[in-house]
């Protein structure tokens, strides 16, 4: 474990909006053993030191740095979070589904909502809340980075305990 190897992993994690271990492996060409060691080292350094205001967390397999909980009061004063209240209830339903599932097809969304989501998806697409890419005959929908960044919806959902939706049913 060399210094520049630690620095590289640190730079990548900081620059990403959450990154999976597999992607880190591909990018660095490190062995899994080495990467584990480095991640461990970083977590130890940041998370356990009182001198650091941030910590490296692994949330659902995504590594990302977050501010420590003890500072949330101060930080809430400066962080401009876009309100989710500008969305209609129907739009919010789909946004929360995508915040939990990350990626969904339209039939999956329709199935959970028990109704057609064509119009809502169209609205959300054109206002930059969601994006989609073609896969096979249909599309895969997900939230845009910009929207996630500005609303921090994923963190909100996590703090509220998650939608906890049974994946087996869909």
């Amino acid at each position, binding site marked *: 474990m060399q210094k520049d190897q630690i620095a590289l992993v640190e730079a990548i994690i*900081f*620059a990403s*909006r*959450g990154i999976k271990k597999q992607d880190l492996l591909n990018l660095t060409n490190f062995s899994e053993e080495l990467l584990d060691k480095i991640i461990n080292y970083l977590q130890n350094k940041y998370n356990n030191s009182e001198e650091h205001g*941030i*910590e490296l*967390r692994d949330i659902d397999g995504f590594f*990302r*740095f*977050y*501010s*420590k*909980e003890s500072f*949330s*009061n101060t*930080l*809430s004063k400066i*962080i401009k*979070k876009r*309100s*989710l*209240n500008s969305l209609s*209830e*129907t739009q*919010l*339903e789909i946004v*929360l*589904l995508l915040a939990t599932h990350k990626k969904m097809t339209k039939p999956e969304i329709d*199935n*959970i*909502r*028990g*109704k*057609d989501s064509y119009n809502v998806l169209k609205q959300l697409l054109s206002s930059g809340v969601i994006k989609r890419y073609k896969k096979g005959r249909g599309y895969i929908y997900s939230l845009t980075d910009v929207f996630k960044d500005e609303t*921090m919806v994923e*963190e*909100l*959902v996590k*703090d*509220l305990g998650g*939608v*906890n*939706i*049974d994946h087996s*049913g869909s």
Partner: protein
Amino acid sequence: MELLFKFENFEGPLDLILFLVKKNKLNIREIPLSLLADEFMNYVNKMQEMNLNITSEFIVTASYLMELKSRSLLPRSNEDQEFQKSKERFYAQVEQYAKLKEMVENIKNLDNIELKNYPVNVRIVFPKINEKKLKKLIKSTLQEIEIKQKIYQIKKEELSIEVVMSRILNNYIGKNLIDILKESKTKYEFIVKFLAVLELINLNKIYLDKKLKIKRVRKNAKRSNSVG
């Protein structure tokens, strides 16, 4: 009688089912399927009578519920594996949707919630690219915008020569030309005013006296001492 209640507009069948569950003040699994199916049918019929928008999903769900109902009434339905599975799938779907709805409510009500942990960012330093070409492109676009912007302002001011001409005839008779021009807020206004004055002189509507005051040309009056 309760069907005479004011109808909410149910967006989809699951919204109606959640409403019925709430109305019965029971857990969905505690409501007899036959009761749920009948109430659902009643509402759908009522909605149809009231010409409310009923999507095909309501019809599909209604017939699905009726099927579940009829199977639940058969003897030994408890041993019917197939039926138990369908029933379970239906309950799971409703419960899942209820959770989602609850989450929506939570977020709506607790909008200014403080997060426990805020994601942090660093600004990424990217390698220097060929900025020359880009800067050239930006510069020319900026210039184009500037030109368009000027035209926009002129349009916005709506200073056509005709408008200014009538303004002069109505308000500026007897006033000094230099004073009027000095009042101009923009170069463009200055030019338009000047052109309007020239045009009025040309049309023989006004003339300028020795002190450059604007005077109206009176019909049959002799035009003298005008500055041309």
